[in-house]
């Protein structure tokens, strides 16, 4: 996947705007700066769509990835922007790193530590 993508995630109170231009993007920052909230909004939008009250604007499909079955799910996702929270332990694994390298998706990882 190539190119630069602009993503807007918003509800009544919050609005996030990101420009994603690489296969791996890291979002880091202090506590209470809205990182987890971004992931939560995306998950709500993914599960409930419009009825979640969360609006997501992006020309590419986007989703979150979590849970122990990530290695079953990821091979079936192509050319999407995938958001992950570092609370998932697999994010630090060699297996995941190899999967990202071989993937045609863009990854946005929300983290709080230097990797």
């Amino acid at each position, binding site marked *: 996947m190539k190119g630069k993508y602009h993503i807007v995630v918003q509800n009544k109170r919050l609005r996030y705007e990101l420009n994603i231009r690489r296969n791996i993007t890291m979002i880091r920052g202090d*506590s209470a700066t809205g990182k987890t909230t971004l992931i939560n909004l995306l998950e709500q939008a993914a599960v409930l769509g419009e009825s979640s009250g969360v609006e997501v604007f992006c020309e590419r499909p986007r989703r979150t990835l979590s849970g122990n079955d990530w290695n079953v799910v990821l091979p079936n996702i192509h050319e999407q922007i995938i958001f992950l929270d570092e609370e998932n332990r697999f994010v630090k694994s060699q297996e995941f790193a190899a999967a990202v390298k071989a993937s045609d998706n863009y990854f946005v990882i929300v983290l709080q530590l*230097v990797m």
Partner: protein
Amino acid sequence: MQFCLVGQRTFEYCGRKEDRALLNIIFGDVENAVYHPPTYFDNQYEDEWIMDPLTVAMIKDIDRSDVVGTHLIQSPVLGPISTKEISGGVKTLILMAFDKSGRIFNASACGDNCAKWIVELGKKADLTINLHHVMDFSSVPVFDALILNTGVVVHSYEEYLKETLVIKER
């Protein structure tokens, strides 16, 4: 003598000569440490912790929010929120302050803006934290901490940084 399992290695360290509280830091994977404290908090917090002046101060500082009651916090961004919606970093700090289970919490779940509070908590009572990164303690230039991986007590941020360079588990 106390022992701590880090990865595949067991570290031993002696009790200190001085009888004062100390911040203890272990880098790397620690058996039975709580890797994601915010989830543990959601399932284990006590109502009485939330109204404690220390918690009120930490929530005000980190989340810029006001504790209205045990189950209600007023956030300038999110509006009125429940206790479970406070930040992961402040949840971790509250656990460090009040949880008496003896568990070691992963302080890498906290942003660097929590570092000064970790140092303060380490002054009030012995506190052992787990880190998976070199936390930025530069907001507290002078502090005491025992780096359990090496057994060295550091007394400043500069000494802390120098000591972390030799720790492969970081």
